[in-house]
């Protein structure tokens, strides 16, 4: 999973192509791994306070179906985390993971055969699902949990025409810079806390005769998406989150002075031959290096800094220790000053298509701090922005870092912007033009072209 952000839409598109091949296939071959979670072990069956859920009535023996794109092996901790709910209420959760979730969920909703609950990885898709008229508003109890445990920004992503449709579930942090703790220690580098510090650090590394940054944006026909993340991160820093929202929703033009400043700031790093591309070539090599390979030069000592989301941890070799005292680790991409902390990220939302008591009860469980902590203890490579989460329950160091960043009261979270823009921009023009920009096109032409592609 390279991005809960840009990728799923592209994947969805790719699947739509295959899917149109025939009804026969969709009849016979869809649905993925499907199992009953009560069959799994009792490892996590710690008792929880059941009163918030029994309030919905006696739901013993009832079944709730949940449909997601989360498949093996990440599905196991999910199923395990439902155990406490099942044990105390007597309800059964039927988990269905499917790699083609993003196309299938729309097909199923439109065909009138939706699951009770779906874990949707982007706000854009939630909007599409609500537009089918099959999605149900979230119960008041769930909304209350979201008000209590999440930053306001989160609720807004799934509030459509004043109605709230889905509580957030997991989250990921994109504002991270990967580095080598041992290199930092040996060379006396400090983790920067402001943008100016980051610039100073970069120059210092150059002065030591190294190429500080490495980057890569190649990703099949989604090539270019890592630049969109860079630009969004800098939009949050050179302007402010409010301007960012306006820019994402096209209330200010895509090619305005704010966006120009942001992309130029990115260019200051990515289009500077002195700064890139450590171990990988010149500026243009960014266009042909896959995003999976782009951060690996850090472990080979040919690159010092690589901006990529928390999921990048999975790309390092098995023997690489990802920890503050290990081979690689990440630091928060600093804000303008030490007190402003914008965080770019992504996440999933739970959307309901039924309003039976057992569904409402389970929805409420998933939005609670109880579930967040249960899930945290069970999984690795998972975080949430649920403020009820105790970061100490997270098991691996990078999750802990991501969790701490998300839960920092000074942090301002913003969802990946390209994911909320219309597809013609967010998964086409933005990627294409960003790639052209890396291979030599100037900032003005790039932004003008994207602005032109925005649907009227």
């Amino acid at each position: 999973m390279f991005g809960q952000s840009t990728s799923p839409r592209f994947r969805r598109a790719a699947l739509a192509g295959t899917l149109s091949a025939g009804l026969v296939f969709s009849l016979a071959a869809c649905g993925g791994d499907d199992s009953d979670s009560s069959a799994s072990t009792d490892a996590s069956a710690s008792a929880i306070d059941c009163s918030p859920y029994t309030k919905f009535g006696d739901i013993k023996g009832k079944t709730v179906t949940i449909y997601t794109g989360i498949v093996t092996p990440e599905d196991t901790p999910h199923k395990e985390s439902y155990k406490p709910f099942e044990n105390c209420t007597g309800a059964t959760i039927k988990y269905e993971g499917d790699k083609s979730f993003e196309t299938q969920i729309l097909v199923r909703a439109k065909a009138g055969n939706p699951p009770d609950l779906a874990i949707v990885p982007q706000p854009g898709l939630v909007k599409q699902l609500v537009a089918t008229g099959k999605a149900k508003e979230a119960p008041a109890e769930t909304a209350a949990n979201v008000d209590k445990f999440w930053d306001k920004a989160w609720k807004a992503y799934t509030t459509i025409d004043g109605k709230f449709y889905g509580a957030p579930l997991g989250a990921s942090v994109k504002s991270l810079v990967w580095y080598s703790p041992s290199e930092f220690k040996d060379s006396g580098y400090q983790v920067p806390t402001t943008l100016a510090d980051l610039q100073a650090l970069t120059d210092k590394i150059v002065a030591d005769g190294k190429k500080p940054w490495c980057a890569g944006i190649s990703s099949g026909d989604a090539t270019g998406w890592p630049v969109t993340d860079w630009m969004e991160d800098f939009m949050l820093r050179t302007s402010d989150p409010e301007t960012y929202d306006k820019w994402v929703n096209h209330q200010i033009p895509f090619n305005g002075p704010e966006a120009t400043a942001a992309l130029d700031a990115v260019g200051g790093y990515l289009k500077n031959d002195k700064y890139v591309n450590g171990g990988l070539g010149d500026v243009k090599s960014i266009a042909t290096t896959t995003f999976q390979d782009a951060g690996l030069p850090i472990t080979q000592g040919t690159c010092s800094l690589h901006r990529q989301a928390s999921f990048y941890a999975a790309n390092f070799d098995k023997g690489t220790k990802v920890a503050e005292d290990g081979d690689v680790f990440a630091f928060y991409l600093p804000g303008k000053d030490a007190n402003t902390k914008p965080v770019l990220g992504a996440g999933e939302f739970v959307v309901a298509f039924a309003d039976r008591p057992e569904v409402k009860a389970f929805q409420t469980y998933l939005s609670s701090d109880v579930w967040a902590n249960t899930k945290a203890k069970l999984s690795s490579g998972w975080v949430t922005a649920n403020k009820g989460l105790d970061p100490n329950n997270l098991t691996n160091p990078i999750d802990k870092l991501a969790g701490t960043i998300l839960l920092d009261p000074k942090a301002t979270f913003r969802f990946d912007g390209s994911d909320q823009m219309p597809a013609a921009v967010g998964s086409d023009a933005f990627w294409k033009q960003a790639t052209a920009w890396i291979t030599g096109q100037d900032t003005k032409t790039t932004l003008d072209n994207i602005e032109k592609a925005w649907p009227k």
Partner: protein
Amino acid sequence: MFNTASTTPEKILQMLAALLLFAAVLGVILFIAARFGGKRGDKVVAWLYLLPTVLLLAVGLVYPGLRTIYQSFFDAAGKTFIGLDNYTTIFSDNDQLTVLRNTVIWVVVVPFLATAIGLVYAILVDRSRFESVAKALIFLPMSISFVAASVIWKFMYEYRPDQGNVKQIGLINQIIVWLGGKPVQLLIESPLNTFLLIVVMIWIQAGFAMTILSAAIKAIPDDIIEAARLDGVNAWTMFRNITLPSVQPTVVVVLTTIGIATLKVFDIVRTMTGGQFKTSVVANEFYSQTFRADNQGLGAALAVLLFILVIPIVAYNIRTLRRSEAS
């Protein structure tokens, strides 16, 4: 039973049900057909046998075709009628013009080069000692899927920086380095990159051209060749006046077949560059507009354009075929 099956037994059951349904429909048709006899009956039986095909063609080909043409006059969401705007975009927008330029390069270069290479190779190895081995060698790429071939060639063109002890892993760049040059990012520079992608297509299609043409050459009657030999013609005259005229209908078929395949090329572009760096062609652009950019109208217009471009080739192909059958 029309719901999505979720467990394996359910899926198998559903598949069996579908097969039974198919058998039942066929049985009904056969049963009705058996009711008719005599001369008029033959006609009825013929129509009955044609019926499933006609129905499937209507549902699977004619209807979607008409629907696509209809959609091409609508906007991105498929809701507002915008006339010929999508077609205007294809012929005026800078990106789209690059797409057209690339498609023209592909269609001009691939069929002629692939056929020429196939023909020359077929003549060279004809009746030589290593004929079967030599033919197998050039035919092998045919058996590889476009995607696999693209992945192989991507490695051929692979670039590693000219930095410290970083070693090249791509053959082409390694040769450049051996010759004392600096490694080049081959797939970035336009229009060179389009030609590099074309090489992959020729690599695959030359084997096809060679096989068909070789069979045609073998079919040239021996007496003509012997007569020419007795007249003392040289190799060039033999090729120009005997071989080429004899295999000319086959050459046309090979050219047009490769031409159609080239117009539809998609896998190579998508696998190697994803249409980036100004390498996109009509089929790839159609896909990315429809499924990625969510612009159904423009996607449909591109599909229609592709359809219109293929028609003359197909028509020409059928005419030559008819003429050669008639003679």
